[in-house]
Structure formats: structure tokens, C-alpha cells
């Protein structure tokens, strides 16, 4: 059966297959850019954001609840075939984290940082690195929207950062000031991102009263160890380590800091030079990536079970989305089951024109 309820702490097996609604006020704050495009279109059409509770999401949330945050951060990787619901499970978990008051660091798609970059500037701080000002400032803007209350009050910088000859941020200033500087001075935004990540790493999970837990969420983590499609001015290929953003993000994904969790997703759809049938961690991360991410907790995401498919079908019927008269019959439902072979994204695309 289908049940829609506002968000409560979900950790029971009976709730698998049921939908819960994210209130629209929290939605804009938690996910300024993080949701998949088709889901955003669905939110706009149905006038509500309903996420299905599924087994991988519940598993991840239960691990997060039981983890010991005095120990180094655990790494979780969601993997599965194309269109199975990895990004949606990640978003479900991130919404849980933000309602629990964690600081959420969400990179919606790491693949966007390694391809189609309009401006690649040589880095101001290090000679061999390359900066991406547009992507960095965009990300800082989204980060500010998500974590407004942390930045303006609690967290302070621990040392003095010098951006250019004339601009610097003193020690003990609130982090929000640094973020604003990065958004206004676009040229040094990549360095600001690096400094921000360093500060958060040092200060997460302290023993003080205003300690916060840090959730690092990267979608498409296999982009960090693959190849890029960017070229330097002398047409030589750029490796991911040459980019400041990627380099600093890799430092974040090492498990040498305490007081948080690292939630990642593998993604073939945006990846470069990987075949469509690859979905396992060894295939997508490559040797170097796997060695860097090892040890991690793998969480497989699979297609819909019978119960979940039924729930999805009933949700679409309830929202008046299945319009073709045949799709409302039992035979039409069986045809949908066969045509989509229970894959969530294919089912969604089929139902959109039927």
C-alpha cells in the first residue's frame, strides 16, 4: 500500500516502498542544485517532492546512526546499474542528515568539474595547478544556501589565509566571510574552496558544545580518478590531479579526519571513456581510485522489487500522471513492468508519455 507522510525518523523495514514528502521550504535550502533533473521536473509538475523509501537508503541511514564519530570517517559507496536510484538514495540520506543538524557538503556531480569547462585559469597559489573559477563560485553559492546557519555563527578560521597581495582573511573570522570573499572575487574561488575544506576537516566532530558532524557527499566519485576531457593551452591533456578543486576534494575523501561520514555514488552516465555496461566499483574507479577509497562500505542499489514497483505505479495513478486508458488496466501495468524491466528511470520515462 502507499502511504504519504511528512518526514519522521525512518528505520523500519515495513516502510520500504512508501513515499515521504519533503516540505518545499526545506527543499530549496537542502538541495539548491543536488537533485536529478527529471526529479526536479517532477517536483514542478506535481507541486510536491515525494521520495520513495528504499532499502539502500534505509541501510545507509542505519549505518550513520550507529557509527562511532570519535573514530575516523567511514566511506560509503552506493553503486548499481544505470538508472537504479543511486542519486535519489543519496539525496534521501542527505535530507536525513540535514534534519539531524549536520553540516552537508554536497558535490552534485563531480563529472561536471572534469569536462566542458569554459575557463581554465592557471592557479594563483601553485604554478602547476589549474583553477576553475565558474564551477568553484557556483558551488560556493550553493554551499552557502545549504549551510547558512553554520557559516554565519559557529565556525571560525584557524589561521590566516592570503589570497592575493592585497586580500587575506584573518584568523578567527567566521567562515561565512571567507565564503563571501570567494563568491565576490571569482579568481581566487578555487583556493577558497580548498581552504574551506581544510577548515571543515580540522573542526568537524570536536569535543566542544557547538561541535557539528560533517557529511561529505560526492555524486560521481569515479570522476576524481578517471581522465578529464580538458586540455591545456598547449593541447596537452589535463589529469584530474592538476585541477585545484579535484585535488582538494581528494584530500577530503581520505579517512584521516573524525566526526563525520563520507557518502559517495558511482556514476556511469556522466563518466568519460567508460563503457555503458560498467557499474562495479573496480570497473568505474579503476585501480588507483579503488586503492584510494579502500576500505569502504559498498551499498548495492538494484531495480525495483515487486512491492516498490506497485508503490510507484499507485503513486503515478494517484497524481493523475498515467493518462493512457490502457495503462490504467491490469494488462497495461504488466506491459509497463515488462517494458521497463523494473528499472526506475526507464519506468519514469515510459510513464511520462503514456
Amino acid at each position, binding site marked *: 500500500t502507499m502511504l504519504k507522510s511528512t518526514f519522521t525518523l525512518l528505520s523500519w523495514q515495513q516502510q520500504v516502498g512508501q513515499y515521504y514528502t519533503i516540505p518545499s521550504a526545506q527543499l530549496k535550502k537542502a538541495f539548491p542544485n543536488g537533485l536529478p533533473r527529471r526529479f526536479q521536473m517532477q517536483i514542478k*509538475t506535481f*507541486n510536491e517532492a515525494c521520495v520513495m523509501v528504499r532499502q539502500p537508503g534505509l541501510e545507509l541511514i542505519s549505518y550513520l546512526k550507529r557509527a562511532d564519530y570519535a573514530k575516523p570517517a567511514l566511506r560509503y559507496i552506493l553503486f548499481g546499474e544505470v538508472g537504479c536510484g543511486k542519486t535519489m538514495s543519496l539525496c534521501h540520506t542527505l535530507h536525513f542528515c540535514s534534519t539531524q543538524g549536520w553540516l552537508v557538503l554536497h558535490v552534485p556531480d563531480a563529472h561536471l568539474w572534469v569536462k566542458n569547462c569554459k575557463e581554465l585559469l592557471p592557479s594563483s597559489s601553485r604554478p602547476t595547478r589549474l583553477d576553475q573559477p565558474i564551477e568553484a563560485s557556483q558551488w560556493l553559492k550553493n554551499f552557502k544556501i545549504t549551510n547558512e546557519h553554520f557559516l554565519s555563527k559557529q565556525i571560525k578560521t584557524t589561521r590566516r589565509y592570503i589570497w592575493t597581495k592585497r586580500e587575506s582573511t584573518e584568523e578567527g573570522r567566521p567562515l561565512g566571510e571567507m565564503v563571501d570573499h570567494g563568491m565576490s572575487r571569482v579568481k581566487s574561488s578555487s583556493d577558497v574552496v580548498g581552504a574551506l575544506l581544510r577548515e571543515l576537516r580540522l573542526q568537524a566532530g570536536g569535543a566542544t558544545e557547538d561541535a557539528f558532524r560533517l557529511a561529505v557527499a560526492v555524486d560521481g566519485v569515479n570522476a576524481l580518478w578517471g581522465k578529464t576531457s580538458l586540455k591545456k593551452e598547449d593541447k596537452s591533456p589535463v589529469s584530474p590531479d592538476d585541477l585545484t578543486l579535484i585535488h582538494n576534494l581528494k584530500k577530503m575523501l581520505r579517512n584521516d579526519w573524525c566526526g563525520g561520514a563520507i557518502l559517495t555514488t558511482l556514476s556511469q552516465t556522466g563518466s568519460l571513456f567508460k563503457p555503458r555496461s560498467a557499474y562495479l566499483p573496480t570497473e568505474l574507479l579503476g585501480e588507483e581510485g579503488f586503492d584510494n577509497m579502500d576500505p569502504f562500505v559498498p551499498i548495492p542499489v538494484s531495480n525495483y522489487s515487486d512491492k516498490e514497483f506497485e508503490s510507484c505505479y499507485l503513486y503515478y495513478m494517484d497524481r493523475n500522471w498515467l493518462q*493512457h486508458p490502457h495503462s490504467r488496466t491490469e494488462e497495461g501495468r504488466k506491459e509497463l513492468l515488462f517494458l521497463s524491466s523494473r528499472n526506475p528511470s526507464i519506468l519514469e520515462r515510459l510513464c511520462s*508519455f*503514456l
Partner: protein
Amino acid sequence: MAATIASLLKPWTPRLCPVRWSRYNPYYLEPEPRREAYAAPEAELTPEERELKTTRSIKAARANDNSSPYNDPIISKFINMMMQDGNKILAREIMTQTLEAIKRKQVEKYHSGPAAEREGIECNPYAIFHQAIENCRPVIGLTSVQKGGRSYQVPISLTDSRRRFLAMKWMITECRDNKHRRTHMYEKLSQELLAAFANEGNVIKRKHDFHKMAEANRAYAHFRWW
């Protein structure tokens, strides 16, 4: 009758050489894709039907005709008319995106508006498409008739297939030519179909102009001899 039909089974070539028409011998029957036609068991068939099933030859079915109830002949015809250079995949993509765009707009209106208006909003993209094409069909057409060295535009009635063809052709040419260059075809089509559903928009205007031309040439109607 049996003698003349069976006489077509000899080696047969058509009298005119068709380029785009079907090259089948007229003996061959059209294929029946719907599953319901084959539902009756063997014992219940009349002797004529049994003879039809056992002896008559049938043409090969087209690739896009399937037995699923989701199959729609008018939509298939529209996809074929939109297709360029044989790229059926792209034409079908555009059609499905158009249906999705129409449904999204209507369902958004349905959910965001007050409950009183919900009855009046038509959300089914197929119903909207059929109604829009229905609204665009011209009733009367013009043809050129030569009389005394001059050719005159004479109003005549159109066959059903010609009306359907004209409606779809006008829809496609309108969306290809008269819209902004940077919009996608499915956006343009969905806007135009929704406008035609409400009996407004450029295609309906073109249909009315067509009717007015036929009305203006009413005097030549007696030139028609058939």
C-alpha cells in the same frame, strides 16, 4: 469472383511502375495487428473465414505496427510525416517528448489550480492530440480545373485521408517555419497543439483562410463535373 482473384496469382507486375506506393499484388490482404481479432478459437470460425485464413496471402506487417493497445495509427502517421532522412528514432523521440510536454503543462495546471477547475482540465495528451488534429481539419478544399485554356481554382469536398494529411502537414510546417529558431521542436509542437485544442493559434487560422478561399471561389463550383 474466385476465378478473377486467383488469376492474380500468376507472375504479376503493376501496370504503372510505383516508386513510393506499395508494390504488392492486389490479391494480398492487409495485416491485422490487433490481438482481439485472433481471440476466437478455431471451431467458431465460419467456412468463409476459415478459407480466408488458410488460402489468402497477407502482406508483411510494418515495423512500427504492434499488437499492443498503446499503438495508435494517427500518432504513427504523424511520426512518419515528421521523419526526415529516414531518422525514425529521432522523430519518435520528438513525438514522445511532445506528448510528455503537453501532459506536464496540463498536470501542472491540474495540481496548482483550485479543486473546482479540475474537472475541466484535460490531461490526456492523446485526447488533446486527436482533438487538436480534428480541429485543424479543413472541410472543403480547392483544386485546379482547366477550362477553355485557363485554369480555375474550384472548391471540392476532400476525402478523409486528404483532410488528415493536410491537418498534420500544416501543423508540422507551422512549427518548423514560423517559430523562433532556438526553441526545440517538441516545445513548439506542444504549444501549437494546445492552442489548436482550444481552437486558436496559427494552424486554425490557416484552416479558416483555406475555407475563406474556397468560399470566395464559390462561383466556379459548377466547373466540377464529378
